């Protein structure tokens, strides 16, 4: 039997980053890293700030999210529903990890996915609830 593994110490919080800015008439929320219980509060603050910034559309960029669990999915879903209740468009850029969890939860129809990154020279490839397979730029 292998020796018991050492317990890990505190994991530094460089594992997550949240930014909110405006670009091309939209509010862009960019989340990077691991979206889990530890970072859920920061993610929610960023999403709430995006709602407060303006009354226009919002792009939630999770293209560099390396992990998302059900905590993050819940925050994401609540934010999108809140925006839609206000009549605001909400688009999502999803990494492979994010797409897999959304698909596993059977919630693809609840999001409008955007192919391509903010500021990238790519066509406006928004995909609504009947979206097909994501393009190579996503994730």
């Amino acid at each position, binding site marked *: *039997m*292998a020796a*018991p*593994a*050492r*317990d*890990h110490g*505190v*994991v530094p919080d460089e*594992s997550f980053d949240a930014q909110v800015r405006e670009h091309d008439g939209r509010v862009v929320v960019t989340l990077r890293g*691991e979206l*889990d*219980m*530890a970072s*859920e509060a920061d993610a929610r603050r960023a999403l709430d700030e995006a709602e407060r910034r303006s009354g226009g559309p919002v792009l939630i960029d999770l293209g560099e999210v390396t*992990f998302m*669990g*059900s*905590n993050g*999915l*819940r925050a994401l*879903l*609540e934010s999108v529903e809140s925006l839609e209740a206000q009549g605001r468009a909400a688009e999502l850029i999803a990494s492979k*990890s994010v797409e*897999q*969890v959304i698909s*596993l*939860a*059977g*919630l693809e129809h*609840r999001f409008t996915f955007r192919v391509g990154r903010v500021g990238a020279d790519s066509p406006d490839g928004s995909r609504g609830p009947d979206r097909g397979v994501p393009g190579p730029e996503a994730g």
Partner: protein
Amino acid sequence: MDLDRDADDAETGETRRTRVPSSPLAPRQARRWLGWLEGYLPPDRLDSARLMVSELVSNSVMHAGLAEGDAIHVMARADDARVRIIVCDCGRGFELEGRPTRPPPHVHGGLGLWMVDQLADSMKLDGATGRVSFELDRGTAAR
């Protein structure tokens, strides 16, 4: 903490155990700890294992009635055929009849255990002790 009561009498492969203190960081610590399984699972299955352990540890932190810093036990055993992972918190336990059901889309939360059941090749629940174990076949194609 007896995490091995479902183990075969002849122990093969590699077994490791850890305790993560209950806190919002516990799921992340548990995911990190699973890194040693890189030699036993392909990347996509290891990602699934990390997601499942993260969900189970999150449930322990949120629902087991643990105080900050209380131990959440994680054990993983890898042999030639499969990886078995056990998460146990010895908290207030939980009640569940039958297999987890997918919560309705408008109900936020409750997805964690259902997702584990969807991803695992097999899963066992012991609500009385807050013990959940699941297995991933090493040779199965990625989910």
